[in-house]
């Protein structure tokens, strides 16, 4: 029986009923990976260790919740003794001496990490085109981008190689690729999942999350990914619920906000049609719609492009060629060592963001840019606080359109930045948000975004699961058959 496109729930039951052994499952996963190398979804494979863990699981009884489930890990998470590049030449030979907390959490729950997925360099990009390791293909079409920055993870799940992958989301890097690849992706509340061992891009925005075929699988993964971690000072010390517990509860009478300022008239009419149909569907499930005004939300993208580069320029100053990572050959002196290492190790987009960050943080410009952006960030957060007094969730398209061709955004970086128009606000306010497949435009999948209030992942998953119980967009596969 093929394991391709199987959900975590399916695979767990196959393993428990002994329809397949742990080792067979992992061997078949690698057969799938090897048959789909043209996607370029993986940077590094973890074959020997994965087979060893599977063999061990076969030899002894194991009650772990995710025992034997193959998972692809975004190459931004440190994995002990397994190369971690963050999509960059700077870390092309970096072997971390420890694993990120979230990786340990998943592996302790029984997950088998099969490899490290391709991504935009240091998570800076929305199409996976900034990776030092080459573009990733979207399984839905030749030369289509998978989105980014978690493009390899999205492609690996979408093509049915693995049921689950980890991603990270600083401005939309889980939700946007989930939308473009037709899968489900969740960015939890800022602080829900420990950032320890995640290679930092913008520390006040970065958050890890699950990517899978269904909301139910995302809930199962989230249960294991969350933990309070003393090693991350922004890790939340809040109750962690069972995220699967309430997903079956009906949403009748619950309120969905539609953001007035998200101007859909500029989008392709087919994209708007798909969105309107989803609204009707939620109406048929008993949800009520309310128009909500978030007056400052149109300033989200400019705010983000001050805050994120500022934090990036500070975080990435650690790459100096001294303690780990790449070092240039034959440095003349210390300054030459720093400058040449960084100039050779970073790609164009990363350099661009570091330069912007240095500019907005420099003396004389700090108040005009960085401080001002942080003030606007508060206005945006205040708008959300007020909105959630009236509604349970907010709803919008995840992206402005479906997947586009590689190279088609031209050389103007702002065109690419606008890809994250709908996703950035949740990062600025620290709110949980997810994307679920809700239709097709030109035979390419597209996603619906739901944003929830602080710590209300369960409610988001409930809305998403109710949708997926009554639609089949998430069951369509790039190879044509329905699961």
């Amino acid at each position: 029986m093929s394991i391709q496109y199987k959900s975590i729930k399916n695979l767990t039951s196959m393993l428990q009923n002994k329809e397949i052994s742990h080792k067979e499952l992992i061997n078949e996963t690698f057969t799938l990976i090897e048959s789909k190398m043209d996607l370029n979804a993986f940077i590094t494979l973890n074959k020997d260790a994965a087979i060893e863990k599977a063999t061990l699981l076969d030899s002894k009884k194991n009650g772990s919740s995710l025992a034997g489930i193959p998972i692809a890990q975004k190459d931004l998470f440190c994995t002990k003794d397994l190369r971690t590049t963050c999509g960059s030449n700077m870390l092309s030979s970096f072997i971390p001496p420890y694993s990120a907390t979230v990786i340990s959490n998943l592996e302790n729950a029984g997950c088998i990490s099969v490899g490290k997925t391709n991504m935009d360099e240091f998570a800076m990009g929305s199409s996976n085109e900034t990776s030092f390791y080459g573009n990733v293909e979207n399984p839905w079409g030749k030369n289509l981008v998978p989105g980014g920055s978690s493009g390899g993870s999205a492609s690996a799940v979408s093509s049915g190689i693995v049921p689950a992958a980890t991603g990270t989301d600083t401005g939309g890097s889980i939700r946007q690729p989930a939308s473009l690849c037709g899968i489900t992706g969740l960015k939890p509340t800022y602080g829900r999942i420990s950032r320890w061992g995640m290679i930092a891009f913008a520390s006040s925005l970065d958050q890890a999350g699950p990517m899978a075929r269904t909301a139910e699988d995302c809930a199962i993964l989230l249960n294991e990914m969350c933990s309070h971690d003393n090693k991350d000072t922004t890790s939340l010390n809040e109750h962690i619920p069972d995220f699967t517990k309430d997903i079956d509860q009906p949403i009748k009478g619950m309120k969905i906000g539609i953001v007035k300022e998200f101007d859909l008239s500029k989008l392709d009419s087919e994209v708007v049609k798909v969105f309107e149909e989803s609204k009707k569907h939620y109406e048929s499930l008993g949800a009520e719609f309310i128009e909500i005004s978030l007056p400052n939300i149109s300033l989200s993208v400019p705010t983000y492009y001050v805050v994120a580069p500022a934090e990036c320029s500070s975080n990435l100053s650690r790459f100096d060629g001294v303690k780990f990572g790449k070092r240039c050959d034959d440095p003349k002196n210390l300054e030459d060592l720093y400058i040449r290492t960084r100039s050779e190790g970073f790609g164009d987009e990363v350099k661009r963001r570091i330069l912007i960050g240095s500019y907005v943080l420099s003396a004389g410009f700090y108040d005009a840019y960085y401080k001002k952006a942080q003030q606007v960030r508060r206005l945006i957060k205040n708008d959300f606080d007020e909105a959630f007094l009236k509604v349970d969730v907010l709803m919008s398209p995840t992206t402005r359109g479906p997947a586009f061709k590689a190279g088609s955004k031209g050389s103007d970086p702002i065109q690419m930045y606008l890809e994250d128009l709908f996703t950035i606000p949740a990062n600025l306010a620290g709110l949980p948000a997810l994307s679920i497949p809700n239709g097709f435009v030109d035979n390419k999948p597209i996603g619906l975004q739901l944003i929830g209030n602080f710590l209300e992942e369960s409610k988001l998953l409930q809305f998403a699961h109710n949708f997926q119980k009554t639609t089949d967009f998430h069951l369509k596969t790039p190879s044509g058959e329905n699961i």
Partner: protein
Amino acid sequence: MDKKTVTTIAYLSRIALDEGNEDKITTDLENIIKFVDQLDNANVDGIEPLTNPLEKKAQTREDKVTAENRKDTFLDRAPKSNEDYFLVPRVVE
């Protein structure tokens, strides 16, 4: 944003600009700065900056050693080291 500013921030960032590509970088940065200048439209009088969505104080903990000393593990991963130190080009003659 002009070439001179770009050269200064590139130096502050310890990044060398590709020769021949300086005009393109200057234009890109100029456009990005123009784009973020939209922030001038917001009235932020009296608004406290939001540095982190949690707005919680950084957690403190007792200062005790919890990690084992793995000096060798870390030095092994450095591009250049001896048994005790990370090595860099000579700074003091």
